């Protein structure tokens, strides 16, 4: 579970790190991904595992479009820039939730049978539910891929450079908007991947994003905004804390553990665990 949190969070971290914008509609991106996965299954009987790349690709386009249509303008605001970004993405979240209710109805849906659903696998006597295991593997693969992408490819380096100094990058002839749009697409695609996997073992409903969004913010902040590795580590910590609190406290209080850990961490390290200045 922790790795999936990490996967959700890393998309957010990427967007934040790239341009200092917090996407408050991140949970809704996840929701959309889950629905897409659901419908691909319901209409075309494509198993979520197979459709995951399709979902990720669709979310990539969606993220890029959101950037080009909305966020690009929000970033130009001269006054109250922080507020404008927060409330633009917040408004977007509300619209997306409304649209989901309108088109998909507020009903809870789930994917009844898939290749993975409900099976467990036994490793050294410990039973692990298969979907979670696959989720973890996909997450690790995605992290590895992202890491390589950012550090080894030209475009990844362009992203890093843009993040450090957008002005200088423009001089070298890189189009800032293209890089940012790509960053948003990539962030959304990662969430799409997470959504596709989670569609297998979570109920899908219009507000589903909200319950994960806060955890995603906590994860990102825990790791330190903008740090990909931090989001990964943050995800694992959050997963562990959740598992531990589930043992000690009643289930309805399990998030309290995560939140408390967040508060503790930022009180001691106001920039998160791996955050730089």
């Amino acid at each position, binding site marked *: 579970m922790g790795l999936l949190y990490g996967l959700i969070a890393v998309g957010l971290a990427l967007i*934040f790190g790239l341009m200092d914008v*917090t996407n408050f509609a991140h949970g809704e991106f996840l929701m959309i991904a889950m629905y897409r996965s659901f419908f691909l299954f319901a209409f075309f009987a494509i198993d979520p595992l197979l459709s995951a790349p399709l979902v990720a690709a669709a979310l990539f386009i969606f993220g890029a479009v959101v950037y080009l249509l*909305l966020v690009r*303008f*929000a970033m130009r*605001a*001269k*006054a*109250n*820039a*922080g*507020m*404008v970004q*927060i*409330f*633009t993405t*917040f*408004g*977007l*979240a*509300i*619209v*997306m*939730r*409304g*649209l*989901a*209710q*309108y088109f998909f*109805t*507020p009903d809870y849906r789930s994917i009844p049978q898939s290749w993975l659903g409900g099976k467990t696998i036994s490793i050294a006597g410990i039973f692990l539910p298969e979907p979670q295991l696959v989720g973890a593997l996909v997450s690790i693969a995605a992290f590895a891929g992202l890491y390589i992408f950012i550090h080894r490819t030209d475009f990844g380096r362009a992203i890093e450079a843009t993040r450090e100094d957008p002005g200088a990058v423009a001089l070298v002839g890189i189009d800032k908007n293209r890089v940012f749009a790509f960053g948003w697409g990539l962030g959304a695609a990662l969430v799409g991947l997470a959504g596709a996997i989670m569609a297998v073992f979570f109920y899908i409903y*219009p507000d589903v994003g909200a319950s994960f969004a*806060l955890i995603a*913010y*906590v994860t990102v*902040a825990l790791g330190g*905004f903008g740090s990909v590795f931090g989001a990964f580590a943050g995800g694992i910590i959050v997963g562990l804390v959740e598992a531990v609190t589930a043992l000690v406290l*009643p289930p*309805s*209080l399990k*998030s*309290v553990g995560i*939140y*408390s850990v*967040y*508060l503790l961490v*930022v*009180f001691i390290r*106001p*920039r*998160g665990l791996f955050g730089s200045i």
Partner: protein
Amino acid sequence: MDKDFTARRRRDLIIAALLALIAALTPLFVKDVVVQNILILTLMYAGLSQSWNILSGYCGQISLGHALYFGLGAYTTELLFTKFGVLPWFGMLAGGVVSALIAMGLGYPFFRLRGHYFVIATIVIAEIGLLLFHNWEWAGAAMGITIPIRGDSWLKFQFLRTKLPYFYFALALCCLAWFVTWWLENSKWGFWWRAVKDNPEAAESLGVDVFNSKMGAAAVSAFLVAVGGSFYAQFVSYIDPESVMGFQFSLLMALPAVLGGIGTLWGPVLGAAILIPLTELTRFKFGGSGRGIDLIVYGTLIVLISLALPRGLLSLFSRPKRTGAVR
């Protein structure tokens, strides 16, 4: 020149008094219960947003966790009433004091945080409060508290047959919050807060006690919001964790101020006057369908206004004197 300034402040006060008078007279013409309801909520949110604005707008500490204080006010009042028979009027005061104290207690660790870390911490702390109340048996846990109503009574501040007392209380709350803001705006605190928002380091160098400025703002803000929470509990006469401490309250306190003009005297009132009726109307018109049209309308509005008018609606009215002429 300073005469201009005094004149402007006096003008604000007179306009406010006139608006309050007009508002006070509306129930004479508006008899429809639904509309009255909307008016009450509008006034309440105007007051709440005005209070939120003190900490987040003037002092610049953006809180998206004010639902915590709202809920604390509601719960303190109703627990005192149902368990110990303390009249809501005292409960209101107690709720305010409890919230202010908690706000200051939280301030110690919280005000060291900056930017997004602070905002997320405020969301998280309100969420923790919500979860704790969910699991607190004595306080009714998820079931909440139903306030026993035995007829109309000013003493117990509960009314079945008329909404007017609620209306006037909401109006009074709104006026109080406005007046407190008006008064603080031209005080040492007001100047300190704005200085802290704009540049804490420079403020410090000019003798401003940055930490205590934030504490003061948090306490005043939390107190007023908690009084609003107490009022709301009496008004709806049933509370549970979601219905008084849910995240939507944090949002509904912030939005009017943001739409109207954050950190301004009139922003929250203007924002609430537009936003709350709109929210209620869309919910009333489309909400029943459960198909989310209200959310779509509402969300679109937020996006458009924050993109088009980053300084809030109030910026439409401010004359271009801001740029000033060189003499």
